């Protein structure tokens, strides 16, 4: 509470402004400084999802660029609608140790009253941006083959039955929070959670048609670098904002977010040098993300020196996971597991090693004599991973009984941009005939060709019925 708002409150109370008393008391609990920072942080985290779209979009083939980016962008809407309707309440409602209740469904009772030192509605919005990006992260495991409609239903269900309960465990007063596990900004909630879902989803869908037979190369590496850069920028809100205040812990998390990926990139490029004699751009982009993921659970608990060490240590596990994965039949296409799963696990465990009570007064880790913290971290990692994996399996199994999970093999050849969206990322417009209103979709186009090709199922069928 600031001096100024205290004075104002006192003034109003002295004057006895009867109608405004309740409201004034509410305002009084809110810090303008914290509110400003959290407004900015929320916008920063929201920007991470379009950034992820660029990162993922650049890594796929050009015929699937829009589909891949849409999988991230549509999460803005899916979680954007479901989070206020039900997700937020399941995550932060009182409930029991495992799941929140529905007392705050439809934003019931979520208004401008203080939650901590910021308006409750702002806390809700900040948390909502985390739900959005977690859904988008999973898409990296299923790109270039998953049917878009099935993906939509999958992430909608997943956001409520996986994301929200796990958030409740860790941040909503659930059992992992009770146990004392440290997860500053979502190493378990966001990254291990999405990483586990990614492995299972990739296994359930099967490999891309051409996986293992052809080289499936990134079509735009500058996109990948730009995406990684904007992710880093947004991550200052992700980690810095997780202090939920404009205070010294926010500064610590902010600085650690700057330093840790630097350590990861350094080691990653050295590993690249040793292995292939060259430093790769896709490698640097990946290392930035791995470093950011790894520092996420630790950001507000460790000193900046150890942040660089943590970032450096996080490189090798993810680097090896990437190399191993590419030699298997596990087509986790954009390596969500290696980057977010392995990176998240490394970060969560190292949080239990480098946490320092002297830094922010919460807890010591293994390195400072508190062995128990390390095991508490390990339990939280295993629990989140297992729950996410199991539920992802059940959701996809259920969906597979009702609808195809992936597009037809032939449509994979054409590319999902045309098949699922009726657009192309890079079209010259050559040979495109403008359809006027009376011949727009709904009217059969080019009768002769339809007869020749009556057996084919190109997308025009869906628009002409």
């Amino acid at each position: 509470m600031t001096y100024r708002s205290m004075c104002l409150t006192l003034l109003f109370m002295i004057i006895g402004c009867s109608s405004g008393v309740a409201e004034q008391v509410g305002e009084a609990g809110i810090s303008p400084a914290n509110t400003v920072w959290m407004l900015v942080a929320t916008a920063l985290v929201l920007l991470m999802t379009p950034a992820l779209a660029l990162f993922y979009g650049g890594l796929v083939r050009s015929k699937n660029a829009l589909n891949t980016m849409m999988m991230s962008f549509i999460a803005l809407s899916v979680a954007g609608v479901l989070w206020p309707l039900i997700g937020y309440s399941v995550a932060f409602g009182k409930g029991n140790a495992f799941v929140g209740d529905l007392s705050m469904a439809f934003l019931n009772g979520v208004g401008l009253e203080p939650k901590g030192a910021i308006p409750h509605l702002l806390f809700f919005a900040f948390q909502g941006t985390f739900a959005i990006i977690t859904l988008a992260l999973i898409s990296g495991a299923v790109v270039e083959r998953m049917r878009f409609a099935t993906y939509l239903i999958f992430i909608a269900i997943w956001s409520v039955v996986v994301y929200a309960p796990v958030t409740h465990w860790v941040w909503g007063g659930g059992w992992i929070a009770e146990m004392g596990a440290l997860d500053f900004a979502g190493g378990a909630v966001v990254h291990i959670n999405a990483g586990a879902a990614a492995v299972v989803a990739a296994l359930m869908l099967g490999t891309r048609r051409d996986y293992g037979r052809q080289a499936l190369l990134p079509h735009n590496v500058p996109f990948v670098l730009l995406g990684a850069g904007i992710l880093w920028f947004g991550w200052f809100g992700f980690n810095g904002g997780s202090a939920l205040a404009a205070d010294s812990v926010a500064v610590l998390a902010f600085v650690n977010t700057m330093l840790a990926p630097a350590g990861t990139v350094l080691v990653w490029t050295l590993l690249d040098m040793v292995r292939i004699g060259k430093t790769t751009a896709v490698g640097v982009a990946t290392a930035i993300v791995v470093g950011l993921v790894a520092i996420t659970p630790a950001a507000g608990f460790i000193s900046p020196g150890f942040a660089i060490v943590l970032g450096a240590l996080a490189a090798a596990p993810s680097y090896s996971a990437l190399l191993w994965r590419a030699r298997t039949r596990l087509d986790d296409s954009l390596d969500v597991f290696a980057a977010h799963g392995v990176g998240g696990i490394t970060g969560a465990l190292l949080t239990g090693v480098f946490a320092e009570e002297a830094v922010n007064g919460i807890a010591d880790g293994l390195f400072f004599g508190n062995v128990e913290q390390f095991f508490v971290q390990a339990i939280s990692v295993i629990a989140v991973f297992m729950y996410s994996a199991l539920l992802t399996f059940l959701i996809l199994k259920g969906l597979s009984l009702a609808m195809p999970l992936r597009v037809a093999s032939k449509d994979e050849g054409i590319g999902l941009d045309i098949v699922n969206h009726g657009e192309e990322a890079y079209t010259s417009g050559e040979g495109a005939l403008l359809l006027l209103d009376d011949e727009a979709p709904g009217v059969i186009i080019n009768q002769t060709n339809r007869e020749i090709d009556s057996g084919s199922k190109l997308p025009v069928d869906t628009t002409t019925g």
Partner: protein
Amino acid sequence: MRLIKAIIRPDRLNDVLKALYGKEVRGLTVSRVQGHGGEMETVETYRGTTVKMELTEKVMLDIGVSEPFVEPTVEAILEAGRTGDVGDGKIFVFPVERIYRIRTGEEDKAAVTPVK
């Protein structure tokens, strides 16, 4: 000597190349082209604009071969390029008057025989 010109689906290119290499056909030129071959158009929508894409992305292969290689080359492309749907493409075989290898000045059959 023949010039074999094949127009195929872009996503069959890797398989076709593999099949050609398998038959020892190593000299070829690949170009990205757009064309129309009787397959159904796709309809795309950009905001209020609906368009019919008349031209489809294809890949064109130009392969100069000596007589004994004509059949194997055509077979390889037929097998590896086929999906069974309209739009798989065409193969044209032309007679060729003369061929030179620029590096050595070799002519005709010698010019298209792979260097060992």
